[in-house]
């Protein structure tokens, strides 16, 4: 076919696009239907959280850090509180630790349910979105019962949690996770063996484990490539070493496995919540933290396992009541960094599937 002149053309995907999970602009250089180069442009959701936090006291920073990643905002609060507690040497009471774990794991389940719905919706199956959000409503009701908020909770504070759970929480929580455990069978039955789902996801977007680690990809996207690295196991924080759960791992590294890993993680989170509810002790819910919270000078980097990967907070304190520097690290940042590497060579439809399966959330990228 010599002599046929073909040209590459540039297609702009976003920033407003139904399947870029927030405002992200991808400039695709395409050769016919195949994607040859991807260049992400971010910053549409940049809210200068780090700069704002330099002018707020630690307690005032907590609700702002909530918005760092609003889908799992309990984790954002947790990572910041962990860092501040390490700086000040505060010991969190037992009951607060258990409550924190329950809330974190419930938030992880809610986030994975959103992932399930949104991934299916991106690939054309419009109904699982409604099913996933219906189950998430039960979890959100629990959160609203506890802290009054549905999305940005401001619940996990420095030293503990802000309020105690009401007495309806435990029975309703058990009922909610029982229902989710049953409905998971429905979700798996709907999509797992569906030939269209398999043909869209299996073999698409292969992420080799060494590439993933080199780019800093963590969380379920890393575990789907066969690397058994979970911060709850390998660098335990809070009281995760007391719970008995498995780390969900799959070995093929394609979009289908990333989807399966997250469904497995929902099951493991349900186990942890069950154990935590069983072992919930009585006691204070917050350590004594002075209103004039002034941690000593020093720097600390604390990290937790978020549903999107490793979430980290680096705080440099100079001894005053405002943090001198806060640097936040989100898992989606690295996952977006790896999209230009694994997204090339396929069609736009594959790029949509890859983007959805990596579970990238733009507020974490832009801060």
């Amino acid at each position, binding site marked *: 076919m010599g002599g046929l002149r073909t040209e590459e053309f540039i297609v702009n995907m976003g920033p407003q696009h139904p399947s870029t999970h927030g405002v992200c602009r991808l400039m695709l250089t395409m050769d016919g239907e195949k994607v040859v180069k991807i260049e992400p442009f971010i910053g549409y959701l940049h809210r200068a959280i780090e700069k704002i936090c330099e002018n707020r006291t630690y307690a005032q920073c907590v609700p702002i850090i909530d918005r760092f990643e609003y889908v799992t905002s309990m984790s954002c609060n947790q990572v910041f509180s962990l860092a501040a507690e390490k700086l000040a040497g505060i010991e969190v009471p037992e009951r607060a630790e258990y409550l924190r774990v329950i809330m974190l794991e419930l938030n992880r389940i809610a986030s994975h349910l959103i992932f399930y719905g949104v991934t299916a919706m991106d690939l054309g199956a419009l109904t699982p979105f409604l099913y996933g959000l219906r189950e998430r409503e039960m979890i959100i009701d629990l959160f609203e019962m506890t802290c009054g908020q549905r999305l940005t909770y401001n619940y996990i504070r420095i030293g503990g949690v802000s309020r105690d759970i009401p007495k309806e929480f435990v029975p309703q929580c058990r009922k909610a996770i029982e229902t989710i455990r049953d409905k998971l069978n429905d979700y798996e039955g709907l999509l797992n063996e569906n030939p269209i789902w398999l043909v869209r996801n299996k073999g698409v977007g292969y992420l080799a484990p060494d590439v993933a680690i*080199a780019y800093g990809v*963590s969380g379920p996207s890393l575990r789907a490539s066969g690397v058994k*690295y979970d911060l709850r196991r390998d660098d335990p924080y809070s009281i995760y070493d007391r719970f008995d759960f498995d780390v969900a791992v799959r070995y093929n590294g394609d979009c289908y496995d990333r989807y399966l890993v997250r469904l497995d993680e929902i099951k493991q989170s349900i186990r942890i919540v069950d154990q935590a509810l069983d072992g919930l002790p009585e006691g204070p819910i917050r350590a004594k933290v002075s209103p004039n919270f002034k941690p*000593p000078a020093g*720097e600390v980097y604390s990290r937790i396992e978020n549903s999107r990967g490793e979430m980290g907070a680096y705080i440099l304190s100079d001894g005053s009541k405002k943090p001198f520097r806060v*640097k936040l690290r989100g898992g989606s940042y690295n996952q977006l960094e790896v999209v230009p590497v694994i997204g090339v060579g396929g069609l736009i439809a594959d790029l949509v599937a890859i983007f959805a399966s990596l579970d990238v959330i733009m507020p974490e990228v832009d801060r």
Partner: protein
Amino acid sequence: MTGDELKDYVARQFEGRMTLLDTGRFDPMYEVKVPDLLEVAKALRDDENLKFDFFCNLGGVDTGERFEAVYSIASTINKLRLDFKVMLPRDGAEIESVQEIWPGANWYEREIWELFGINVKNHGNLKRFLLPDDWDQGHPLRKDWDAPDFIRMPEL
């Protein structure tokens, strides 16, 4: 390897190149000089007992007198974590890019260039990232950056 063993090992292997700063009861923080950065990073990644293959974080800090670039790395194989920083002068701050060693550092370096003005050599793609493409009003995360009363909207 526990925390203390790691401290001893690093003190032995990287004598002279990584100096331990006094951090009290917090996690150890090392200082690496600017010219040694690339070889220290390579050694940290390739050393048999350390194998720091996972890049966690790179943040810039403006302490008023100088800039610092704080690196956090981890090892997925040996389950370790390490922080180190590079001290830089305020004017003409320059560091080498570590993206051949940890490709994930690419975007982090772009960000510290954009928000602090620390130049990163051999990066290849220092373009506007979080801020609008035609931003010309300074490096926002510096301590002496004054937020103007009105920010000009980007051209559409």
